[in-house]
């Protein structure tokens, strides 16, 4: 029983620890929380496009037309304002999460 408990804890820690892991096809990307947002782990220095574009555009309003159909505002902001590409990954349990991918290889949840 104890072993099972440890195993469950380990699985949980791996899936939902401070760093988040999302899988995109063959690629696994590890995200770390920086100033309340998730960016890929090497972006912790805040020098990547993901962090800088977020700081620049996160509060900027989006035209209503772009959000029709209840689109994810973060996805629309990524494409329309930040110049990124949206890709959808899954976490360990199969829950979906879109992220914004930038030309310098950085990612923003």
């Amino acid at each position, binding site marked *: 029983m104890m072993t*099972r408990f440890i195993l469950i804890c*380990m699985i949980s820690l791996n899936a939902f620890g401070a760093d988040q892991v999302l899988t995109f096809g063959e*690629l*696994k990307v590890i995200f770390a*929380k920086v100033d309340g947002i998730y960016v890929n782990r*090497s972006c912790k220095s805040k020098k990547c496009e993901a962090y800088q574009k977020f700081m620049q555009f996160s509060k900027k309003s989006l035209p209503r037309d*772009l959000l029709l159909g*209840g*689109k994810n505002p973060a996805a629309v902001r990524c494409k329309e304002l930040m110049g990124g590409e949206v890709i959808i990954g899954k976490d360990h*349990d199969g829950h979906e999460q879109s992220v914004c991918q930038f030309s310098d290889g950085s990612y923003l949840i």
Partner: protein
Amino acid sequence: MSYIVFFLLLMNMDLLADCKMSNGKTHISIADNSEVSLFESGKSLSTHKTQDQDGLGTCYANTTSAVLKSVIPGSPDVSYIHAALESSTNGWSQNWSDGKNQYVKNDGSELTYGGFFCDTIAAIKKAGGACPSKHSILENKELINSNVQLELMKNLGTYFDSVNKVKKDPAKLQKLKSNLAKVIDSVNLEKSKVIQSCEAEKRKDLPLKKALDDAIGLELINLDLSVPCDKFKAEKFQQILGAKSIITEDQIKLVIPPTLESEFELFLVNSKIKPELSAFLKKDQKEALNNSAFQQKLGSVVADFLNSKLKTPGKNASCPPGSPNGKIEVDPVDLGTSFYNGILLQKSDVCSAYSENAAIIEAVKNSNIHQCIPETQLDEMLNALAPMMKIGEALDQSLVNKMTNPLSQYGGQLKDLLLPGCSKKENLIDIKNLSCGSFSMCDQSQYIDLSNTTYTGPKGGCYDFGSARAIVRMKVFNNISSNRALGISVCTAFMDNPSARTNFCQTPVKGVDGHSLHEMTISGYRCKDGKIEYQLLNSWGKYQGCPVSDGDKNSAIECSLDKSGNRDGKFWVKEDVLVDSTNEISQLVNKASP
């Protein structure tokens, strides 16, 4: 003094008051700080996976899929892509009769989005039933190439946008055509990659390959490359795996060399693990899941194998004092879990996933080809796929012929591509017995009502707030208590500004980002500090599903968290704020149920 104590006690009693309500006939009491959610174990949404609609304007379809899951016996996962395609092609076809055939009000202005729940249900019924999401290429997210996924979503998003404008704007029509072609290109590219991959891998026992991939991947994810020994270990992995694999601080892409894979498999066979594994595979998975001894044994085998590969003779100078000397330890329990998941649960394996993926199989069958075909037959496959490339031409043709509903035929072809398993009616889930009803807070009689399922608000106006609140309450409590989720169409101003008041979306809110209609799912209710709150399931992914950024405050919203304290795509919202922002609420009832 005693008065003060008595007063404080009274205050405290008030704070801890239960939530009580009545419509004159039914009386409900919810204990303070208690909650009811369909995500609780054993309830209808307990296995629901959070969706992210990305840039697709499909919120009504995402909600429809969640509500359908909660209502259909057995709670199957239902495709939202199917719901969206049916809604955008069949759902409105009755009105595609002349030049005005848009989503329109009677005054000719465009109908805003958000509240298409019952029309979507009607469209799904018309199609013959709901499509299980296992048939959806996009929703399975099992595509080998993430760029293909990206292209599909991007172009499909443009497709859904274009659906509404296709007759108004020739440039948009051209864009639709071009994006349809790109969607097809993307699918074809993926198919060819699958075939190439299967061709290369078919000699191997792929579950083992995937298990190894998972095992190493898990090991690497847990490394902290700023720690010398961990960095050394990562470098060793990189050395073993070769240049095609990527191992950096934040990205892991593993390409297992065939030699390593074969050796691994041979090792397992020689260790007599494989027969034992087979024995377990024949048993019920739940039984196997509970066998920790088996997991440990597997973990030890894999760990021993990896450690033998990573073993470095002599002392490693980069390791700090006290760390393992000359040998990199791999945790057997950690690896055992991964290995176990990789094999017994058969997750994510390239070819086996595709073998089980009816969507891909159907797509391949429809093209008269077979998976993992010899290279010599590749031409045959491409020839078989070629007709699909003519959809763009068909679109042109439809324009020439001035078809009343040009989308109906393309929608059908898109379905073949994206949901091939659901081209056959026997794969659809019958929903004939489901009865849909949308209850509007304001007069909706000016809207076209295709399905006669909208119960409009007062003529020429809206309900008073108290009546609207009573409607929402009773619908929510009645349905949630019967294990059924509901759809709710809201204007989104409250997500940015909790004090925004829109009078059931009748009043524009200035200065609020993206104040528009959005459909979500009501999945629970609770009583908090004597006030009712509702749980909303969004379709914007795990993190963005709760629309409040870290550091921002929104007194109306509390992000729902999973057991580990992470966001789970849902949020709680105060009743008064939600009701004020509600355009309509929809329920789906199984007429066959007692």
